[in-house]
């Protein structure tokens, strides 16, 4: 005779429909006469259905920004020996970092403006018309600017939210760097507005936007390292600023 103890381990298989016909008939016959096992089957089925309705969960925005920041840092560097973690860095070290940031970020920015590669000409339209070329050119620029401006807006939210985690000297330095870049963005935008077909104006504008994204990504990465109490990681992030503009 089939008992509940024999049947119960297989009730999940019954709910999942994975029993062969013979076993299924035998177990269903038992369930029809046993309230306890019938209750288990009903509850298992309810749990299974509810589980199937559990959907994806949107991650918070800062997760992507931290990923993007880390990908941006992925350029090869000389290996750095791991240092023991200390929760708070001495103020003089942050001041040193801040000074280094002023020099390297501004220097890299000026260098990039001078050493910019030869500009790419605007693509020609399919019909070869100048109007078509300008339109394609404008569309590409609009798409690129939308991308950068969206990234900048998201990054600015994160950096403003977590600004308190930065040493005031370092925060002021970063702010100063961003103001320099904002000024370059404004100038490039004005130049481009006056001559929408100008490749140098376009390149200059995109480069300035990209530079701002880079600095903000680095800032988020820096905040992340500070949050984790990783002084060595924070110093490494700061040291990487000039290399991440490409």
């Amino acid at each position, binding site marked *: 005779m089939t008992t*509940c103890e024999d049947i119960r*381990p297989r*009730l*999940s*298989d019954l709910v999942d429909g994975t029993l062969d016909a013979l076993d299924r008939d035998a177990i269903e016959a038992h369930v029809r006469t046993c*309230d*306890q096992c*019938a*209750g*288990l089957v*009903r*509850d*298992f089925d*309810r*749990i*299974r*259905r*509810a*589980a*199937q*309705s*559990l*959907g*994806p*969960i*949107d*991650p*918070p925005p800062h*997760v*992507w920004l*931290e*990923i*993007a920041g*880390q*990908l941006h840092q*992925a350029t090869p560097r000389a290996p750095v020996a791991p240092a023991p973690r200390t929760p708070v860095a001495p103020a003089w070290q942050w001041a040193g970092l801040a000074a280094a940031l002023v020099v390297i970020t501004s220097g890299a920015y000026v260098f990039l403006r001078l050493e910019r590669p030869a500009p790419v000409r605007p693509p020609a339209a399919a019909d070869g018309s100048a109007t078509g070329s300008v339109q394609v050119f404008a569309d590409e620029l609009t798409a*690129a600017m939308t*991308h950068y401006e969206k990234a900048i807006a998201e990054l600015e939210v994160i950096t403003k939210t977590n600004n308190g985690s930065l040493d005031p000297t370092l925060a002021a330095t970063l702010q100063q760097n961003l103001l320099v870049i904002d000024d370059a963005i404004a100038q490039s935008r004005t130049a481009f507005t006056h001559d929408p077909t100008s490749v140098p104006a376009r390149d200059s504008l995109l480069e300035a936007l990209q530079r701002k994204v880079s600095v903000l990504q680095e800032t988020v990465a820096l905040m992340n390292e500070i949050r984790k109490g990783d002084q060595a990681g924070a110093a490494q992030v700061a040291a990487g600023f000039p290399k991440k503009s490409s």
Partner: protein
Amino acid sequence: MALADRCRAGAPEAFDELYRTHAPRLFGLACRLVGRPDAEDLLQEVFLAAHRKLEQYRGDSALGTWLFRLATNLCVDHLRSRGTKWARLTDALIDDPVGLAPTTGSVIGAVDRLDLERALTTLPDGCRTVFVLHDVEGFEHHEIGQLLGIADGTSKSQLHKARLRLREALATGRRACP
């Protein structure tokens, strides 16, 4: 060009698209397997690992499937590394007597999703993982066996134990909140 190819080619928006397409499902998986506090770090690990390993992706399976497998492996590694006695746990559960004392009829009624999410957090890591992969993500026992390195029968028994424990947790919750 396929998304994987565009990511490999370094197209500016490709990895962003990869993330926005697949992150919610992978984050849901991570939240349910390792808990919300660790899930954010794990999601970062998943996409950084994907970025490093995209060269190895040959297109034998869908990109989403490849990412899901990568995420599952990282979640399981995480559970193992945080001290879970994975093997012993999975073995012990087979004969572990759990569940309500014999009761007549159904004890839980309709199951609310939030109640189920909460009840999931009360499960041991091993049977929670099998339950999430089977009942939430729709994997078969032989696929779960391959993913977790356990026998199909172990996967089945884990699922059964998970459902018994969830039933108990949900019934307790109902009794606590009339």
